[in-house]
């Protein structure tokens, strides 16, 4: 609440903070520090700071504001050299953070984590609030430095090997994840570079993705990555990236590569939600996510002659999809009509109305509801797989035809315009990943659409969608490779007969080079 701080609180806060900073600088052994901390808490008590929850909140708000004001004062003081400036700032922030960490660690009874976590959330919320207000007020002169230092050092202080803190790890990581989510770059663009540093710090990644049991930190981290992609998306939609965007984009690639290398299963499980927000033209960044496969899986060489994908054991298993994509199929009556069409191929009008549900504007480049398109394609595909399996068959290019599911896909291929069909084919290509039942089904589906296409335009566009994913630098998803190889090798697709294969010398050469590496 905004009612005034009690008189004298500011002076007390400043005095206590300065006192603590000098204590912090002297005590460099653990024992001396604990003794000092004990007497300092008594001093806080004596000043009445710890008397009520409200006073504690006001103290932290005052102390944070004091530190931030000090940061700006030191930054504007030209007498210091840059290295000194940061050392001075960090000296204050680190001391303040250490006090908070000790208060969190020692507050409440030993066995009662609630008091500790409540205090942590309170402090994080206070700093978050001051940061957002500060960014609003200062605009382009906002400095991320003090806040960056605060959040990072507080997380490191609460991540030290300590039995009490270890037992709180999940709650501590959750508190920071929620704070970082509220601090996402769309809300705090002035803090975006520090933000990506914070969420990708080696200790934070280690905690949230590896050390919290049963992968309970994964949904939290997936949310943070979604925040990052949401922020970058509008700036990545155009091929030329401004320098500030380029730095963020390159940083994102580094983070994704660390995740691909250390936690591929995480990318596998959350790929669907990420593909909803990554712009369709970010081919390579999306490929990093789609190329992930479980570490215990051995991928057969895609160039193996006569590779029988449907004979692979993994093809029978559905991949884990940790996105509640079905809820994207809106509105409710559309979902009802969809289900009834899948069940009984009625109402027949369903197909002719399909595009009207997907198209949301006439603005070129943003005509379609991409999350709905992606969800529709995956939903129809999973229903098709279940339907085929219910007849004890394995999906193949022969038994996926002449079904309500394929009616929908063929209708989309024919009825949509170039932009819409591009997004539709992308939705399919986004399922071409490591060996699993979705990869196999959608590989058959896209090949079937190619074979049954009633115009060459569709065949060309299918080729373009696959090709643009193959000509970028590695990595390339396994499912994409085996689909393209099948397309150019299997004579039933008459791939080489099409004019567009020879439309330009470099394109012909490209196909031949890919063909050579396949044969």
């Amino acid at each position, binding site marked *: 609440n905004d009612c005034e701080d009690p008189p004298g609180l500011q002076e007390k806060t400043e005095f206590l903070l300065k006192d603590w900073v000098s204590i912090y600088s002297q005590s*460099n*052994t*653990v024992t001396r520090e604990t003794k000092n901390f004990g007497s300092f808490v008594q001093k806080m008590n004596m000043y009445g700071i710890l008397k009520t929850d409200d006073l504690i909140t006001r103290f932290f708000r005052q102390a944070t504001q004091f530190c931030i004001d000090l940061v700006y004062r030191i930054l504007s003081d030209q007498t210091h050299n840059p290295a000194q400036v940061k050392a001075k700032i960090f000296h204050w922030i680190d001391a303040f953070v250490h006090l908070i960490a000790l208060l969190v660690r020692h507050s409440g009874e030993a066995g009662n984590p609630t008091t500790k976590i409540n205090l942590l959330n309170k402090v994080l919320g206070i700093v978050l609030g001051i940061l957002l207000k500060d960014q609003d007020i200062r605009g382009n002169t906002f400095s991320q430095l003090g806040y960056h230092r605060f959040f990072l050092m507080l997380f*490191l202080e609460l991540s*030290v*090997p300590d039995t009490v803190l270890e037992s709180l790890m999940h709650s501590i990581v959750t508190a920071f994840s929620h704070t970082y989510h509220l601090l996402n770059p769309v809300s705090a663009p002035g803090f975006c*570079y520090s933000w*990506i*540093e914070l969420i*990708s*710090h*080696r200790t934070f*990644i*280690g905690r949230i*993705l*590896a050390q919290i049991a049963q992968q309970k930190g994964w949904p939290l981290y997936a949310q943070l990555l979604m925040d990052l992609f949401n922020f970058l998306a509008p700036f990545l939609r155009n091929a030329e990236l401004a320098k500030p965007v380029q*730095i963020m984009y*390159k*940083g*994102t*690639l*580094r*983070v994704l*590569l*660390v995740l691909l*290398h*250390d936690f591929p299963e995480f990318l596998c499980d959350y790929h669907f939600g990420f593909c909803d927000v990554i712009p369709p033209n970010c*081919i*390579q*960044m999306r*490929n*990093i996510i789609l190329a992930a496969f479980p570490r215990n899986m051995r991928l057969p060489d895609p160039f193996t002659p006569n590779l029988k994908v449907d004979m692979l054991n993994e093809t029978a298993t559905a991949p884990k999809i940790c996105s509640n994509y079905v809820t994207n199929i809106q509105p409710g009556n559309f979902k009802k009509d969809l289900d009834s069409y899948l069940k009984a191929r009625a109402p027949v009008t369903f197909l002719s109305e399909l595009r009207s549900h997907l198209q949301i504007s006439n603005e070129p480049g943003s005509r379609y509801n991409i999350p709905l398109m992606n969800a529709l394609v995956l939903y129809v595909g999973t229903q098709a797989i279940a339907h085929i399996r219910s007849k004890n068959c394995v999906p193949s290019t022969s038994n996926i035809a002449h079904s309500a599911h394929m009616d929908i896909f063929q209708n989309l291929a024919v009825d949509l315009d170039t932009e819409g069909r591009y997004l539709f084919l992308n939705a399919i290509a986004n399922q071409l990943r490591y060996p699993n039942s979705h990869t196999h089904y959608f590989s058959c589906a896209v090949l079937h659409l190619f074979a049954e296409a009633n115009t060459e335009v569709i065949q060309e566009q299918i080729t373009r969608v696959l090709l643009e994913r193959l*000509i*970028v*630098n*590695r*990595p390339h998803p396994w499912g994409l490779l085996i689909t393209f190889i099948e397309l150019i090798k299997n004579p039933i697709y008459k791939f080489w007969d099409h004019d567009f294969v020879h439309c330009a010398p470099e394109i012909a050469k490209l196909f031949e080079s890919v063909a050579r590496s396949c044969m």
Partner: protein
Amino acid sequence: LGTDLTGLGLNLNSQESLHPTFAGPFADQPCRAQDVDYNVPPEYLIN
């Protein structure tokens, strides 16, 4: 054509996990042994 991802300073063929020495999204070198905090015996903290 995207970026040559092997040129971002990450040892992508490493048998070890990358995140313990990940130096951050803007660093093009992993952390060195002297950069990584380690839980050394308290007696080593000599200051």
